């Protein structure tokens, strides 16, 4: 085994596979230097264990000491007792084993199935250990942050990551947006996937802002103009913010289908009967059903029509109010001059990443309507293309990642089955489309959807229900709860799931300084260099 670079911390004294191991700290190791969330290696007799500190405790060998503690001003007494009668103890959750058996020599670190034996020695994981487990920054691995208190770069394999839907969680102001921006940059640098981002607060396309630094920070298009297009629903607002937009999205009334309204039932305050009526009206009036329904005059004739469809007058009024709310949205026109879906698809086909800004239309109705409508139609195209590719020799579409915020609005128990997003989350990447969901209230998201998310990145959460829903089904849940609860209120996150061999708390990579932008440009060079190298190799 490789040489140890870190000093010994202590000794394993008890443990179980289920609950983790207890480690007694050596007298020279101060509890105050230990941090929940740090990694340690345990040198077992046959293999090396890799685990995370999940709790730190003060122990006494004799209850009398806690009962009548010695005078703290007596340094001699304190020095004698330190590490003998009073000691520090760690609780460590072993997560991986390295070396020892054939499998881990061939396949790298393996999940733990046992515990290290008594008195195995424990030390902090070294930078090399971390690299061995998480891998180095390379053409597929993207540096997302650093493990707590370490210099090592924590890298995610993005090609792997985008194979499933993923989630970013955390309460407001903890760094979700910054993390998402980083991840998006990572994807456009280091994966083959293209992105479609429903950007509710105009933070991803051109520029966002940093509360703590009190200034603007660059977003995708400023750094990667050749790879990112900004679409807007509010051209005027975008122009005022100095954003160079590529396309203005208009939604035609005639494009809205009954399902789009049914899904907005809660937000539009529609009754059950009113929602039913939508389908009947569509059947009766065809494509222009909304316009025609709104045009119905308050006359006997109207009442007859409604009666013939079994629609109650009050239900109809309820529906009209809802439809009027939609009509008032400025980007809704009776007929869209250019088909937005088609345009987005053209860009995506060219490998461009599309950010759709909502401008001033930040209300949830507009966001839900547009995101659901566009995603639905785009998804259908991907479905067709994938099926075509399976049937014949057409290339399958490039993987697409759709980013949505306020995800619980789309994926709560009541509507998850109605929206396209619920379908995408459940179908995994059957049609080469996956989601990146961002939310501050994960407990409101349907459990089934949550369980389908491949990798979860969560910033600080303080609501018990939210914590439970994010950590549901993961082994060592209680221990990880402690780690999650101890994250800093900003710029720290816990990553776990498919894309990492074991859960890891990180400090998110810095974003917003000139130096940070330069680092990212360098990342691009690596990819380009790799592509160039490959080309040279085969040409």
């Amino acid at each position, binding site marked *: 085994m490789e040489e140890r670079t870190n000093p010994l911390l202590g000794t394993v004294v008890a443990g179980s596979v289920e609950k983790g191991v207890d480690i007694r700290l050596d007298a020279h190791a101060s509890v105050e230097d230990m941090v929940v969330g740090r990694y340690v290696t345990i040198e077992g007799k046959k293999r090396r264990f890799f685990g995370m500190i999940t709790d730190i405790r003060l122990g006494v060998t004799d209850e009398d000491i806690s009962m009548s503690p010695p005078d703290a001003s007596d340094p001699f007494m304190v020095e004698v007792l330190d590490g*003998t009668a009073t000691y520090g103890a760690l609780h460590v959750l072993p997560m991986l084993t390295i070396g020892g058996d054939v499998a881990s020599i061939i396949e790298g670190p393996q999940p733990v199935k046992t515990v290290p034996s008594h008195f195995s020695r424990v030390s902090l994981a070294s930078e090399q250990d971390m690299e061995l487990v998480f891998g180095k920054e390379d053409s597929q691995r993207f540096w997302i942050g650093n493990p707590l208190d370490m210099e090592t770069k924590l890298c995610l394999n993005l090609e792997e990551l985008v194979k499933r839907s993923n989630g970013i969680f955390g309460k407001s102001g903890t760094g979700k947006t910054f993390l998402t921006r980083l991840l998006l940059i990572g994807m456009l640098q280091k994966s083959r996937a293209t992105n479609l981002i429903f950007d509710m607060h105009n933070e991803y396309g051109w520029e966002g802002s940093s509360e703590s630094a009190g200034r603007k920070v660059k977003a995708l298009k400023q750094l990667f103009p050749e790879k990112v297009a900004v679409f807007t629903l509010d051209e005027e607002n975008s122009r005022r913010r100095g954003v160079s937009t590529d396309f203005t999205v208009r939604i035609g009334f005639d494009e809205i289908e009954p399902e789009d309204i049914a899904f907005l039932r809660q937000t539009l305050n529609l009754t059950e009967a009113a929602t039913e009526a939508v389908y009947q009206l569509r059947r009766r009036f065809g494509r222009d059903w909304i316009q025609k329904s709104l045009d119905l005059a308050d006359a006997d004739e109207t009442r007859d029509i409604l009666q013939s469809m079994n629609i109650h007058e009050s239900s109809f009024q309820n529906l009209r109010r809802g439809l009027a709310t939609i009509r008032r949205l400025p980007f809704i026109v009776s007929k869209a001059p250019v088909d937005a879906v088609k345009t987005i698809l053209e860009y995506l086909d060219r490998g461009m990443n599309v950010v759709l800004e909502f401008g001033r239309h930040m209300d949830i109705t507009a966001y839900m309507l547009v995101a659901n409508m566009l995603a639905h139609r785009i998804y259908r195209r991907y479905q067709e293309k994938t099926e075509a590719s399976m049937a014949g020799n057409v290339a399958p579409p490039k993987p697409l990642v759709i980013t949505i915020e306020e995800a619980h609005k789309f994926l709560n128990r009541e509507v998850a089955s109605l929206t396209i997003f619920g379908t995408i989350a459940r179908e995994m990447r059957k049609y080469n489309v996956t989601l990146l969901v961002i939310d501050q209230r994960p407990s409101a998201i349907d459990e089934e959807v949550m369980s389908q998310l491949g990798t979860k990145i969560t910033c600080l959460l303080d609501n018990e229900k939210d914590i439970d829903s994010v950590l549901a089904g993961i082994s060592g849940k209680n221990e990880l709860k402690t780690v999650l609860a101890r994250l800093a209120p900003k710029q720290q996150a816990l990553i776990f799931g498919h894309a990492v061999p074991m859960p890891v708390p990180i400090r998110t990579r810095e974003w917003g300084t000139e130096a940070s932008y330069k680092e990212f440009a360098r990342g691009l060079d690596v990819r380009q260099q790799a592509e160039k190298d490959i080309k040279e190799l085969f040409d």
Partner: protein
Amino acid sequence: MLKDKLGEVIESSTTGFTAECYELYSLPPFGSLVKTADPPVEIYGVVCQAGTSSIEPGRRPIARGKDEESEAEIYSANPQLWKLLRSEFRVLVIGHKQDGTVYHYLPPKPARIHAFVNLCSPEEVKQFSRSFDFLDLLMNAGPQVPVEELVSATLRQMSTAQEDQRSFLVAAGKELTALLGGEFTRLKAILTRLK
């Protein structure tokens, strides 16, 4: 070596011996390390009890200084006192040495009567106290000896032979903590006497 001899063994057993001083009152300090030889074995022990009394067990000394100016004058006026009184000390055996190796457990045989008893030199103390394994024997000194006093006195005595007195005492304290697990009050009693 002969010059340093304190006295000789007058009573002996496996766990300890009693020695009489050649000079009245020339007792070694409580807790000091002494040795006696039973070639090829050297027996080490600490002074755990000391006293001066009449030679004849039945006869007790009487007060004599009523008309004297000072205590010294009592002795010069009654020179027979030097012969009628004797100083003795009791030694608890805590180890032995054979062929240059120190063992912190009891020797195979007790000391012989009339064997000379010497105070150990600082070098010998240092060699002997390289390990604290003798603490176990000290702690079991028995009911006649105040153990906390004896342990602390011994360690204080030994510390004077060390280059770094403080770290010696800290290390000894840690050893005691392990030995006295669950007996924090006793531990505290010893530790407060170590300074």
